[in-house]
């Protein structure tokens, strides 16, 4: 395994953590991270952890295994957030970086299967009342299913809402928006989270939400000390066990 050293500075992290939940810092300008030892983390874990420290929403479309199978051990690198992302992705070279509406997106651009999900376009997506991100994500999934299956009458059930998902997002209303646009909008509005999408099943009809994407909630305060969670679908058989459902420290 190719190992690189990173110095992850938390010099500014504590300062950034004191920002309000919706504060935004331009991703490319965030200086990062010193003196954090990284041992055996996957690029996916490390990207989420750095986004958390930098308070920078991020979206990651998982497709090629390198992003969740490579292991990085590092120390001694000082870099801005975007520079660090580039350095991390040296271990997952199939992935590229883009930025959309202030959200750094990482994806394998030629992955058609992923694009079939993330580029799914809604003629109109809207929510009708302020809701937390979890609930908006459920509405996104419901709209996807309503679109994929015209016979479907609706959706609903019981949502377990993470305790740190307590920001009510203003109602959404967008026309000709992709699913990726909505996910980016959710994490951008919420300001304290990332999205991770998984290689979607085929067909998409009735695929549960958590097999399509996860919202990852950043740590915020002493009471919300967990970065939670990624639930890879079962078909990613080689997804590291120690990363599944992991609550990053």
């Amino acid at each position, binding site marked *: 395994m190719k190992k690189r050293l990173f110095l992850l500075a938390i010099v500014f992290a504590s300062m950034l953590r004191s920002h309000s939940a919706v504060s935004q810092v331009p991703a490319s300008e965030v200086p990062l991270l010193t003196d954090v030892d990284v041992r055996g983390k996957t690029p996916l874990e490390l990207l989420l952890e750095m986004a958390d420290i930098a308070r920078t929403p991020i979206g990651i479309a998982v497709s090629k295994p390198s992003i969740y199978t490579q292991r990085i051990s590092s120390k001694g690198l000082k870099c801005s957030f975007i520079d660090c992302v580039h350095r991390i992705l040296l271990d997952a070279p199939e992935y590229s970086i883009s930025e959309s509406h202030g959200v750094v997106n990482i994806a394998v651009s030629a992955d058609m299967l992923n694009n079939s999900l993330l580029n799914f376009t809604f003629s109109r997506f809207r929510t009708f009342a302020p809701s937390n991100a979890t609930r908006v994500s459920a509405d996104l999934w419901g709209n996807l299913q309503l679109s994929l299956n015209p016979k479907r009458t609706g959706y609903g059930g019981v*949502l*377990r809402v993470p305790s740190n998902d307590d920001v009510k997002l203003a109602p959404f209303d967008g026309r000709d928006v992709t699913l990726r646009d909505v996910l980016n909008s959710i994490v951008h509005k919420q300001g304290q989270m990332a999205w991770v999408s998984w290689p979607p099943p085929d067909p998409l009809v009735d695929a549960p939400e*958590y097999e399509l994407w996860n919202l990852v909630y950043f740590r915020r305060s002493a009471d919300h000390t967990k970065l939670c969670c990624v639930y890879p679908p079962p078909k990613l058989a080689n997804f590291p066990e120690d990363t599944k459902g992991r609550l990053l420290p």
Partner: protein
Amino acid sequence: MKKFRRLLMFSALCVVGGVHGQQLPQGATQSHQIDLGNSALFHGESSGYPMVVDAPVVAPLFLETEHFTSTLHLVNSASSTEPATIVVRTPDGNSITTKLTLPGHDSLTLPLKSLLKGVVASRGSLEVYATDPIGSSLTGQLEITYNGEERRAAIDEELLMPSMTTSHTLRGISLESDTLPVVAISNVANTPVLVNVTCNRSAGTPLTNSLQLGRHDTKFVRACSGAPFEVTDDTALLQALDTSKASETIGIQISSEDPKSELQAFGLTLHNVLGHRYFSAINFNDPKEWNSTQSIYAGVPVGYFQPLANTFSPRFSFSNFSNQSQTVTLQGYKAKSGEPSESAAARTIVLPANSSSSFAIVGDPNSSELISYVATSTGMAGDVIAALMDESGTGDNRFLIIGKDASTVLNAGMHPWTADKENHGILVAFNHTSKPQDVTVQIGNGTGGLWQRRITLKPYQTLTQDLNELLLSSDQPDDRGNLLPKNLDHGEVTWWTNDSRRVTGRLFQISNSDRMVKNFSCYGQIVLCQILASATPSVGNVGSSFHFTSTISYCTTNYGGSSSQCYGPNASGGAGATYHWNTYGAFQVTSSSNYDAYANAVGGGNGTAQVQAQSAQCTVNGQAPVTVRAPTRSQIINSTYTGLQVCGNGQQTGHERDLYEQIVDNQNPAQPFLADGVTVGEVITKSSPDDFAWGSGTKTGSGPTAYKNAPNSSPQHGVFTDALYNCDAALNACLAGGGGGKLSVLNQQLTYGGVNVPTINSLHETCTGFTNNGN
């Protein structure tokens, strides 16, 4: 008789104690009521008798003359302060009462002069009464000091306990001398009694004299002589002591045929050796209280003895009170190794019927080890009695060591100690069995410090613990790692074994300036009396581990005859018991090791860990209650509802209720689990009816819904949030005002920390909202 219902007599017991409800003897009503002054230990006399006290122990003789002074030593082996009442009786009928308290694990030295409170008396007797309602922890010894020579000499007089249940016979030995012994005989009973005094000489027919003793009367007799037999005044007493005769050892028996008699006696014999005068004590024992034919002498200096800078030779004296010839075998054992002593190879002496004899073992000045002796006789227990006087070769130093019954039912010794520049204290304890024995040694002081060590003695090994060294040492911690405070200079030392009949001990007390030796040999009984068990935690969650610990306590107790008496004033914690653990309720013992155990909670509810400890004849039980918290249901602590509105792609109607919940336990009233970071999982299943197609969307069945709980809003902890929502065209009628009576049902099975929450939530959806188990 009521006062003896749980007391047997041990003439060398020294324990103050008895049964309660007894009134002080009638003589006490004439007492002088004089306070000893402003010592904090002494209390003013309570007004008037009768007063409720215990049965006494008695010193039949004290002397306060030009050449004799007397001192009472009291010891409290309990942890608590204990009360005592001392009654000093003078020949002219006075009784002077002193009430005092003695701090726990402490000793008290009381000059007789202070107890006389100004009353002039050259001799008399004294009684000590303990008044603890659960038994006595006090022991005592009277020390008569002879000041007539350049070097003082101590005469040790053990306090004796009268009894009506035994033979009313006392036996003692007057050591070999060319003078006749003088004996003080006390009748402790309330009725007059006729007493016979018989002397066993080395040869010839035993001589018997008789005298009448009134109630609570003490008389002095010139034992073993013809008329005048009774000594009526102090001058005659000293003259009597000087009466010359042929040098010989004499056995003395004091007896009465009156079943109501309660006799005690103490005697003195004057010796003239190499120009030195000294007195030896005659301590009397009730032969029926001896359970064996073995006398034990622990830690006898033979040869050079450094603390006294002199070479000692023990002289053993024996008297055979039976009508048949008896044989005595003496065996010595080296203190450190327990090996048979070469300088005291087994010796045998044959004693004709009703005769007395003695022999000495010459100490080697080049040898300095203590030797412990076992003297074994033929015949019945009590037929042959023995005494040991350890004598210096220069004739100016000697001390009497009182032999102990090898089979006494008492298992402990309680002694006062003093250790400072002037005084040297040495504890000895001899394992007179062929197996290793554990001895607990505890050294205390009323003002602080309690040193306890459990020591295993090899067969026939003798423990020698120098208290002065122990106080000065920085590397002799006790079993709990504690050192004795260096500023202590006196207190109480207790030693005990779990079982009696194993170990015999005593305390040497040596005055450094004039090398006077005292021996404290008082016995008592220490029993296992209590166990306290506790659990950590006392309230824990199902699946967690509990640690149970127990602490045992030993108590001093009055010996209760054949029945066990496992209570009394608390003396100490300790070790040495055997333990058995059981648990009842919702957990199982996973491991136990004597005083502690571990158990895992396997279910919810109340449980108990029970521990039983056993030592000798005493068994104690303790229990530690435990509450095992198990999740039973979820509890809504807050909720918000968003009413019916358009949702989805605009073609549906939806609503939502957010429930803020905690998992609660099985206690009454139920208590919430407040730990954060515990995974609360769920499995949702659809049920019927399903008029609103609820559950057609997310997260039916098992899914990754096990977010860990976390604080919701301070100070709420352990909160998790469920959003019940539905967005479905089936609800459109509700928005339009229809749909009444329609219902959808989901079942929610929760888990808390991986443990099933047994109450399954029934979630209902109607047009007007959501309920969880009707809430």
